[in-house]
């Protein structure tokens, strides 16, 4: 599975850019999301102030992260929740499986959780004879199609309504073909009703975890999050360790940044604040609430001052919505749970830089992502940093080891080529000579084949600017 990620990015992105229909779908979907977000931030001053606050809240919480995790654990336990810690996806899966086994759960109903995708929970549970059913409409659709989500907020963004209509008609009993979106949603609602009713356990993600009160905050529009966490007798929540917020008072700023950036809404239909299982006198709500805190490489990003900024992310998806690369290749081409710009900076920590070595360079550094990040993650700067780590082996003089897979793209031949290039560009006599030969061209455009895929080879001018200006100045004097 892991080597597949690496070797497939080039061929996947090639296939994706050749798929005209998919390109059209992503273009219109991204245009829609871009416009919705823009309408929510009409005032540049308000935007600047809000994101400055957002950045400060996230950086402050990260600065105190170990303390907050302990505080959260204490509070959550006081509230009656059980807190679990997992370093790896396998550990997280084992913990969740253990809870379900103890409760003799056969079917787990899921609200939306990207972290559960990250650990490949559904596959693990299936291998252990437990069915994990997706209830978020987008996730429900991709699960039915046996695919992975292609966007962190809108999982089925790559599917047209015709494809969904055909899917429902084929996979759901007694369902006629209809392209009417209202009807399709009602079909989904009906199909999942019984599942919510029957489910013994529900799993959710977490948008924010609040240390001060031991509270989990979940946002959603559909209601499946509330249903998954209120109907079954067991609720399991899973989150990355970086989602900790210090205080309840930190929530409003991040909430408004999240919903406006992600779907262009002032607020989602539902904002759930869960602080424990049902109290003794309550008539519904889960009897047990578990929270799994997952590391999976986040502590690696945490250890480096610059890279730690990656963990500020509130998973809004605005970066990928504005990314010209994501718009052309879609989410699946990245081969990672989190695609787009955030995917390219977080996946190296979760999966290793060796497995994701093509991602840091899959960007023109245009900066559209950094412009819209609600918590001011300097994404292009982090991509550049990862490019340095990609070609610098751990143990290189004056260069510390910071991440697994460092130096994965190191090639002696490439290093020597750049050294030659730097020699050329620091020695005027050599530069002059190379300008007169194709050597200069080769340094600027190292792969003729790649360049000429879409362009003609540029012609070197008969006289360089150096020569023309020299002649011009001699003429004047």
């Amino acid at each position, binding site marked *: 599975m892991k080597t597949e990620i690496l070797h497939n990015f080039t061929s996947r992105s090639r296939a994706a850019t050749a798929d005209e229909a998919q390109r059209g779908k992503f273009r219109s979907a991204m245009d829609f999301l871009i416009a919705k977000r823009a309408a929510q931030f009409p005032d540049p001053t308000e935007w600047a102030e809000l994101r400055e606050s957002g950045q400060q809240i996230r950086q402050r919480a990260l600065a105190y992260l170990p303390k907050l995790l302990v505080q959260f654990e204490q509070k959550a336990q006081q509230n009656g929740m059980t807190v679990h810690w997992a370093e790896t996806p396998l550990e997280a899966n084992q913990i969740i499986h253990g809870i379900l086994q103890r409760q003799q759960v056969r079917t787990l109903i899921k609200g939306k959780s990207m972290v559960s995708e990250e650990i490949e929970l559904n596959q693990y549970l299936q291998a252990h004879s437990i069915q994990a059913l997706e209830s978020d409409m987008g996730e429900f659709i991709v699960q039915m199609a046996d695919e992975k989500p292609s966007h962190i907020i809108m999982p089925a963004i790559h599917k047209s309504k015709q494809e969904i209509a055909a899917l429902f008609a084929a996979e759901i009993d007694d369902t006629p073909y209809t392209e009417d979106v209202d009807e399709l949603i009602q079909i989904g609602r009906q199909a999942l009703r019984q599942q919510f009713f029957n489910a013994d356990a529900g799993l959710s993600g977490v948008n924010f975890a609040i240390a001060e009160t031991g509270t989990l905050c979940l946002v959603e529009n559909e209601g499946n999050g509330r249903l998954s966490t209120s109907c079954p007798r067991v609720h399991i929540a899973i989150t990355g360790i970086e989602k900790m917020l210090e205080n309840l008072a930190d929530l409003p700023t991040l909430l408004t940044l999240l919903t406006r950036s992600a779907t262009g809404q002032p607020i989602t239909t539902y904002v759930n604040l869960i602080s424990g299982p049902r109290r003794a006198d309550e008539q519904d709500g889960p009897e047990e609430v578990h929270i799994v805190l997952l590391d999976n490489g986040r502590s690696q990003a945490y250890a480096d001052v610059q890279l730690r900024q990656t963990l500020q992310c509130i998973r809004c998806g605005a970066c990928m919505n504005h990314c010209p690369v994501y718009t052309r290749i879609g989410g699946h081409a990245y081969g990672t749970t989190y695609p787009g710009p955030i995917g390219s900076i977080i996946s190296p920590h979760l999966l290793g830089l060796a497995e994701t070595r093509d991602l840091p360079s899959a960007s023109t550094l245009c900066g559209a992502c950094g412009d819209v990040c609600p918590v001011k993650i300097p994404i292009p700067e982090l991509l550049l940093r990862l*490019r340095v780590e990609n070609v610098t082996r751990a143990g290189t003089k004056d260069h510390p080891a910071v991440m697994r897979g460092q130096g994965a793209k190191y090639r002696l031949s490439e290093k020597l080529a750049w050294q030659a290039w730097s020699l050329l560009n620091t020695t005027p006599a050599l530069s002059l000579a190379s300008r007169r030969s194709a050597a200069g061209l080769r340094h*600027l455009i190292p792969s003729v084949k790649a360049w000429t895929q879409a362009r003609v080879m540029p012609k070197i001018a008969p006289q360089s*600017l150096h020569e023309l200006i020299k002649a011009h100045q001699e003429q004047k004097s």
Partner: protein
Amino acid sequence: MHSNSSISLFGTCVVDLFFPQAGMSALKILEREGIQVNYPQAQSCCGQPAYTSGYSDEARRVALAQIAAFPGEDPIVVLSGSCAGMMKHHYPTLFHGMPEEEIVRQFSKRIIEFTAYLLEVLNIELHDLGPAESVALHTSCTARREMGTLQNGRELLRRLDKIDLKTHDHESECCGFGGTFSVRHPDISAAMVQDKTAALRQCGASKVISADCGCLLNITGALQKQQAHPENKTAFAGLHIAELIWQRTGGKSQ
């Protein structure tokens, strides 16, 4: 007239090799305004290709060579937004915490992008001799985001009063060059430049103007390749803004 002023000109490697006429146009515009233009022959490349590929040591070596080539304190006018951004914003980052940091900072302070110099320092008057023409403007991502020069291109074109500026679809989107990105990820780059050129062809202009030759290399290269297709009969040209200005304002030195 600013006959007491002198500047140093950084041509950029792309202009040097492929678009020297853009450099000459810029030079002549400046000289016509009475500016004395120095062009240190030892200059080569700002170092961006190595920098964006992760080769910081090599980028630093080249950066120091450029700094050494430009002694003095005069402004350094740069013919491309992305190279200007490299030298103004990324050089200090490259040398952060190193002994050369202060020298580098002093150098970076002198950097000014060409269109910014024409407008902010010279407040240049342009007498447009025509003919009337529709053009599109492509602003490089760096110019847009790091140098804040989107408005400069528009303002200069506005001062050429027989130019009609057309907007093109998804105008703020990257053209797909990204330096080595164009050859490392050729399929994605090709898709981006295809969309950019399609938008340009459809906007009602007959040429695209840019203040960044890296983008021009990419866009004009694609436009020319597409001319092989029967549906692209009319040639769609690309031109550096300096050349456009020089051509339309008489194209003659005093």
